[in-house]
């Protein structure tokens, strides 16, 4: 077994970390405080080319393997989760189905500009009455002439209010549940497509999240992304493991940022005449955090390696997302205990990590749903 990053992966990790340290970390607090999409940073960052991370070199991407993708997701989340969410939406979920099923014209119009950061992408799953329960999707589409007519409202859409295009999850028949799901591309400016409420979030601030409304929106035939009708849930399966592992990698990123903050504080903070890091109860916290983070890291990167090698990764991806997120919550909680009352003040970092970490509980499936999925898959049909 070889757990070591290759020399190329290791160099990539250090270069990405340095880029994040220079461009994103210094702005992380401001992004959080203003809670506005950081357009200047977006332009500066997208110019570097990372938005094409996971796509082939022939179309201007980097063709990064899954381990490198996780390295990137972890590092950017360490810098600013608010910014990371917008970036990763463009890299992964917001463009995946265009890359996979889009016509040449669609790729030219949407995918390639999104890879260059000239267009903002998003993906719309969640509705006010459905999130993890995708079978309950109420946004519908029907055949209308040479295209499709879409009706419905999506909620909690990352990049939604500022997106240039979105991949919408819609059903051909709400009674079909998961078997009626499909993906359709809708571009900004299409009549009937608009942005509604912008959500004032507790964490991950800086990413604009909100409601998207599809009021009798008509799109041409080619905007149905998929080779066959009603196979959306299978197509989703192609990318779901990566999405879950990505969420786990982001959790690792926040956990590392929190851990580093705790470590620096424990080494410097003097109480009762000595650094608090010499106290056994503080040392125990670091032993615990380090153990948990190592376990979470192994799960996330093992999952990425399995995915890269086309191995069955549904269970490990769900477990890694769930476990890494829980570890992140634990580490952030310990940071606030080590830091003392200042962790409760807006002028210090711990409160941001504390708020940001909570959001990872929901994306990629709630842990209650994931546990049910894992258990059900292991036990099988009885």
């Amino acid at each position, binding site marked *: 077994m070889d757990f070591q990053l290759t020399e*190329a992966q*290791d*160099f*990539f990790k*250090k*270069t990405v970390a*340095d*880029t994040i340290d*220079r*461009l994103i970390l210094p702005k992380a607090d401001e992004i959080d405080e203003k809670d506005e999409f950081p357009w200047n940073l977006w332009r500066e960052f997208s*110019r*570097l*080319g*990372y938005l*094409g*991370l996971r796509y082939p*070199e022939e179309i201007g991407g*980097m063709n990064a393997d899954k381990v490198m993708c996780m390295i990137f997701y972890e590092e950017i989340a360490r810098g600013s989760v608010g910014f990371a969410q917008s970036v990763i939406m463009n890299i992964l979920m917001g463009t995946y189905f265009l890359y996979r099923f889009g016509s040449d014209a669609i790729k030219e119009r949407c995918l390639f500009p999104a890879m260059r950061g000239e267009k903002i992408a998003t993906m719309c799953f969640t509705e006010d009455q459905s999130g993890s329960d995708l079978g309950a999707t109420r946004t519908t589409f029907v055949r209308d002439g040479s295209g499709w007519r879409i009706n419905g409202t999506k909620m909690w859409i990352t990049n939604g209010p500022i997106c240039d295009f979105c991949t919408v999850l819609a059903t051909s028949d709400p009674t079909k549940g998961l078997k009626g799901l499909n993906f359709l591309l809708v571009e900004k400016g299409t009549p009937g497509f608009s942005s509604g409420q912008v959500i004032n979030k507790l964490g991950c601030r800086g990413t604009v999240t909100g409601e998207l409304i599809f009021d009798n929106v008509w799109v041409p035939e080619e905007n149905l992304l998929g080779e066959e009708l009603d196979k959306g849930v299978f197509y989703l399966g192609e990318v779901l493991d990566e999405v879950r592992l990505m969420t786990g990698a982001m959790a690792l990123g926040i956990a590392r940022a929190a851990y580093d903050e705790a470590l620096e504080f424990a080494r410097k903070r003097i109480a009762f005449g000595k650094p608090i890091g010499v106290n056994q109860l503080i040392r125990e916290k670091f032993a615990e955090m380090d153990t948990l983070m190592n376990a979470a890291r192994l799960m996330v990167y093992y999952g990425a390696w399995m995915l890269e090698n086309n191995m069955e990764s549904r269970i490990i991806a769900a477990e890694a997302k769930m476990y890494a997120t829980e570890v992140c919550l634990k580490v952030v909680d310990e940071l606030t205990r080590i830091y003392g009352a200042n962790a409760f003040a807006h002028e210090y970092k711990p409160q941001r990590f504390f708020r940001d970490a909570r959001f990872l509980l929901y994306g990629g499936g709630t842990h209650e749903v994931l546990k049910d999925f894992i258990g059900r898959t292991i036990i099988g049909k009885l």
Partner: protein
Amino acid sequence: MKILVFVKQVADTEARITITNNGRSLEVENKYALNFFDEFAIEEALRIKERLKDVEVVVCSYGPKRSIEALRTAIAMGADRAVLIDSKDLDTDDPLITAKILSGFAKGDGFDMILCGKQAIDDENATIGPMVAEMLHIPHVGLVTKIETPEGGEVRVDRDIEGGRQTVKVKLPCLLIVQKGINEPRVPLITGVMKAMKANIPVLDPATYGIDVNSCTKEEAKVKVVRYESPGGRPPVKFIEGATAEEKAKRLIKVLKEEARVL
């Protein structure tokens, strides 16, 4: 035109460094980075390349194998190629030996201009640039803050002097030692990172360039580190107490006069 840039991989500023072996050696946490001042030199070489187009930027380091990572960073930024001269058997504390080896490389590989940072942030010697220039019998300019586009076999550069700035014209080939403020080093593009990841960086023996290895051994070193000491801890912060601002001010003046002795 060919520009050589000499770089060094140094301990990252965040790496934990422990004095070991009874003060005779250092144990460095495994975190290394491209020397801060060398990034300015690479950036400046790349800017000249962007202006003149027909320029090759070659980056060279003399150090242990791990230094390849610093060279990859240089390639990610845009350098054309990089070379590592392995210090495996010759590693000494003497900058004269490093200068001998780097000047040997420069002679062998050829150059029109050499750029380097003003000092390495680990040993802070700040001697390699001038020594290499002397060994190559070429002019050097230190503390450079601006390099104009070379023209007609010479280049105009600005350098900081006490209380002002000096502009000098220097004939090529030359060695320029750059310092902070000359530019803002670029963040590598992903295309550069990809190129760097795949780059084959040759690791060479000093003898490859006809360098007299026998004069570069530990025994030949003229400088040897005797011991390391960590800086003393900062004195404690003293709070000046007092019922009123006036009283606090009086006590502060007394402390500044009698204890700090700065008044």
